[in-house]
């Protein structure tokens, strides 16, 4: 099984990182994330104290929006091209395929976000302590965002206006991650990180099964 999933993983990763066949690649969500972090000081003004107090929350909102950006490219193109049918024919479970895709998606959007966070922390005048909590929070939270993203992508694949609908569906599901992630930055909010990790794990545990069921139901 692992030997068959490995080529699938490398293909997923190459497609999501590089972007081909109408997939945007890893650069677009990253630039989007930085653009939101850059816009915010323009909107609220350069007051460093205000930015420092609200900036970490903005990073979380930006991460959430960046996670939504590639949703319509995650599952739809492969479903349309018949890849999922061919994998099903070979007895490879949809759950395994989606788990592989969640990992690939996380590497292509979560890791760049982690790398870009110090830059956006500079734009938003966060101090080193806050940045550390933001990085830790993103490390714990982005796998959950990736899991939710792939689930929603599987659910809305093949629907007309699936892209817009996907964004709308993903936002409420991601709210707990946002609350715990941003909440962990409040004074004494370290417990938020544990809740963030728990929410992320729950999303990771449910996502392959929910998405797999969606893909099978979509064949009918």
């Amino acid at each position, binding site marked *: 099984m692992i*030997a*068959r999933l490995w*080529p*699938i993983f490398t*293909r997923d990763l190459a*497609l999501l990182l590089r972007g*081909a*066949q109408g997939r945007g690649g890893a650069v677009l969500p990253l630039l989007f994330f930085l653009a939101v972090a850059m816009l915010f000081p323009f909107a609220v003004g350069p007051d460093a104290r205000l930015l420092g107090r609200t900036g970490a929350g903005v990073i979380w909102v930006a991460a959430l929006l960046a996670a939504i950006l590639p949703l319509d490219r995650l599952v739809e193109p492969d479903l*349309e*091209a*018949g*890849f999922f*049918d*061919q*994998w*099903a*024919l*070979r007895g*490879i479970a949809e759950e395994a395929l989606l788990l592989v895709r969640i990992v690939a998606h996380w590497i292509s959007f979560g890791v760049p976000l982690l790398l870009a966070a110090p830059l956006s922390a500079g734009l938003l005048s966060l101090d080193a302590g806050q940045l550390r909590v933001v990085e830790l929070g993103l490390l714990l939270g982005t796998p959950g965002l990736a899991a939710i993203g792939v689930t929603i992508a599987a659910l809305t694949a093949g629907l007309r206006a699936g892209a817009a609908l996907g964004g709308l569906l993903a936002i409420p599901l991601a709210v707990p991650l946002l609350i715990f992630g941003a909440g962990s930055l409040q004074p004494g909010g370290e417990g938020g990180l544990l809740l963030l990790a728990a929410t992320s794990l729950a999303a990771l545990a449910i996502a392959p099964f929910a998405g797999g069921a969606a893909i099978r139901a979509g*064949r*009918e």
Partner: protein
Amino acid sequence: MQACHLAARDIACRRGDRLLFKGLSFSLQGGEALHLAGPNGIGKSSLIRILAGLLRPFAGAVDREGALALSDERLALDGHQPLGAALAFWRRIDGSAEGGADFGLEDLLDVPVRYLSTGQRKRAALARVAASQAAIWLLDEPLNGLDTQWAAVAQDRIAAHLAGGGAVVIASHQPLALAGVRELALREYVA
């Protein structure tokens, strides 16, 4: 090749609120070919998908022994990849060596899949099926878009697969020049 077997028992197929066919049964052993015949829209492709296990029959069941390979209108090859790399992706998953049947694709291996013509894409799909080493081939309109030369080659490959002990189900509205192929007219099962 391993012993293979494909049987449909009393299958009915419903798409939307329309019952396409019902009471369809057949049994196929290694070395045998079945031609699903009938006009457009009668349910040939739906039956192929039911046999592939991708669609649940409205009634009845499919018994199968042996691995499946499917060629339908979905190519399942990455459009931006050169044909050679796109085919190699499936060979890696199937663990098969350089595919047996070549379908005259040698000169096209470094051409991106999206630049292939209709007939070349069909040949690529057949090459993917042939390289999969599966015993049971499900081919949906395998001769569509092929010129007479390649239609003959494709049917030779299918005959060779049958001679090797494989089984083939072909959905086609065109007559086939295959020896010993059984015809199943879906018209007789229309509900």
